[in-house]
């Protein structure tokens, strides 16, 4: 009898697993139906983000395009194991034939299905990086690498890959310099996020109010539109339209979809998705000021003891944790400048004791992936337990 029960349980679990997989498989097949095999003419891997079906979206600021790549990487890995790869710069330097100061990592993205980590990199002069000089300011990332959970690194061949590509509407022209001494074009696409058939693409346009948020349908081709953005910069004490969103994340409150986003120096805002209409101008609601002198890098959510949190990484600040329950409580947006002595205001948040972290992504059920500069100076890929965050 007991044996029978075990059998039954086993079959039930198998059935459950099978049905969830096939839903994903079905989505994957529908979404990649029009993909073509061949060369994906990526000119710069400026930003990357995975969809739940294992499709990698690549924002290409140089070409002004968005690529969707089928990496043929859909073998389920349900492991909850940790992961650490020390000295990733040294390893990339080996592969790219240079020394540590000759490689730059531009972005990382984890395929949650397989737990393979993808890295956008360039062989460029890392000596040029600075507080206000991020990787995309120095070079265009031109190699995509894959790191498997056993730590093996290989190049993803973009010359022969199933993919789909589309133009990103209204990307800023090349030729003008920004205040950080970089070409404005490097900020044409500053972040992308995929949610339920839509791609949200932040960056700069040729509009008078240069900062825009674009919405594209995926699969590509049906519609693409954008709205210009305006944000109250608490630390600067003024409304601004020329600096782009640096990171964004789709999130739902009471059944309504929002984008949570952050700008340089570091306002944290919410934007109702329904406001991003063709040609509209959206005044963002500034929920918080996280402090000047910093550029936000990535936003993710993670679960700890069954409770969801937002996590944001930064160029010059430790990880920031936000309890999303507090967001709807912030009824009015901030519109006042900082008072004397103030640094971070608005939405309640925690600054965690994890420093030197540029990029973050979800890794597996119990870990998030960090690209972290360690106390010994090495840059490591570390899967960090969510229970400690």
């Amino acid at each position, binding site marked *: 009898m007991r044996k029978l029960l075990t059998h039954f349980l086993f079959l039930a679990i198998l059935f459950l697993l099978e049905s969830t997989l096939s839903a994903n498989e079905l989505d994957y097949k529908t979404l990649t139906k029009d993909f073509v095999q061949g060369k994906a003419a990526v000119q710069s891997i400026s930003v990357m983000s995975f969809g739940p079906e294992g499709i990698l979206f690549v924002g290409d600021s140089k070409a002004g395009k968005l690529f969707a790549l089928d990496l043929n990487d859909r073998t389920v890995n349900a492991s909850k194991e940790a992961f650490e790869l020390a000295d990733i710069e040294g390893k990339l*330097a*080996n592969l790219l034939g*240079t020394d540590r100061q000759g490689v730059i990592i531009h972005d990382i993205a984890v395929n949650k299905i397989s737990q393979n980590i993808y890295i956008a990199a360039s*062989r460029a002069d890392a000596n*040029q990086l600075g507080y*206000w000089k991020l990787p995309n300011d120095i070079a265009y990332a031109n*190699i995509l690498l894959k790191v498997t959970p056993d730590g093996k690194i290989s*190049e993803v061949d973009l010359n022969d890959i199933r993919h789909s590509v589309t133009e990103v509407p209204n990307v800023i022209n090349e030729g003008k*310099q920004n205040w950080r*001494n970089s070409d404005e074009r490097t900020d044409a696409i500053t972040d992308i996020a995929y949610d339920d058939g839509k791609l949200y693409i932040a960056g700069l346009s040729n509009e008078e109010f240069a900062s825009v948020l674009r919405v594209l349908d995926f699969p590509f081709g049906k519609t693409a539109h954008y709205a210009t953005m305006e944000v109250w910069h608490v630390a600067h004490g003024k409304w601004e339209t020329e600096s782009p969103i640096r990171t964004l994340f789709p999130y739902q409150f009471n059944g309504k979809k929002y984008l949570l986003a952050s700008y340089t120096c570091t306002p944290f805002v919410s934007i109702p998705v329904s406001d991003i209409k063709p040609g509209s101008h959206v005044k963002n609601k500034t929920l918080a000021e996280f402090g000047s002198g910093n550029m936000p890098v990535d936003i993710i959510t993670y679960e700890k003891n069954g409770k969801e949190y937002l996590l944001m990484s930064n160029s010059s600040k430790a990880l920031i944790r936000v309890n999303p329950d507090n967001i709807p409580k912030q009824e009015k947006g901030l519109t006042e400048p900082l008072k004397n002595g103030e640094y971070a205001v608005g939405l309640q948040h925690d600054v965690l004791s994890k420093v030197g972290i540029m990029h973050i992504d979800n890794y597996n059920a119990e870990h998030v992936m960090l690209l972290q500069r360690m106390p010994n100076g090495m840059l490591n890929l570390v899967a960090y337990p969510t229970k400690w965050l």
Partner: protein
Amino acid sequence: MRKALAICILYFLIGMARAQPSANVLLVTDETSPHFGSLLFQNLEAFLLETLYKQGYSSQHFFKIYSEKPNEHALPMLGKLSIDKDLLYFTPRFPFVEGKTYWVDINIKETHQVNEINIPIRTEQTPPKVTAIYPSSKQWPANQLKFYICFDRPMRFGEAYQHIQLLDENGQELQAPFLELEQELWNKDQTRLTVWFDPGRIKTMLIPNQEKGTPLDAGKKYELIIQDKWLAINGLSLQKDYHKNFEVVAADHIKPQPDTWQIVSPKSKSKTPLILRFQESMDFAMLHSGINVLDNAGNIIYGKVHISDQESVWQLMPDTPWQSGEYTIRVSADIEDLAGNNLSRAFDQAYQKHFDEDEPKDFIDLKFTIR
């Protein structure tokens, strides 16, 4: 029997020889070759080439190229093997770095042979050079506002101020004479740096000026040193200090006076230069952007701008010959003399409009005729 022994020894020797990796490796340095920048393996045995061919050249078993001395942690470089006319090539994913050493591990029959390959520096590289410092004059006013350092190639960002020294006539270094901005002021191609003297010490109404005085004193001599350690983007340093000696004359608090400027008109149907003389040295960078010549219909006359005589003479060599007619030299009101006095206002003048003043203009027009 002896013959059989001899054959045995011969086979043994051949076997020995085959057991030794016999390939040698060199870099293709002929720029006209399609394999330029690849490694070429010679003396490879046919069986090896055949094996590689069968494996689609994908095997990294026989040849591994390292950018550091092979050790248990080092990963081999990414690249492609290919065979062309029975010769084997390795083309790295990114070009080999000039001046760097690479290690080639040839592993045939489990016997490793490690060769070092030094990548030569392609063309003889000369160190970067300071081509000029502006003002080029050897006399600077005591309220000199800024100067420009020009290089012959792009320089590295973020280390400028540690390489600029200003000495007084006793060889003592001046303390903090410059405005050290976190964002260094480079032109777009990073070949020209603008260095400001601390404006707080130049404006006579401000506290730094009243406490420390102007950075430069009239009647004294100074030496500006651009130090040899300054790096270009390609990693080469200047290697030699650059010296600029100047003496300081009285402060200049007077706006440039366009009515004293002299225009030398060119001749019609010629490409001789239009000459504008200012009677004093002007800010070098602004002379390049702040002056346009317009024809009677308001079209800009394009040509080459040449600045000479310690930035006191501006010349325009037109791309097409001058035609007779009326012309306008439109000078931006923002162009400055060495002390930052522009056409609207002296640098030291308080920023407030007096009731009896005219509205400041964006530019002034100077007319001339070509006959």
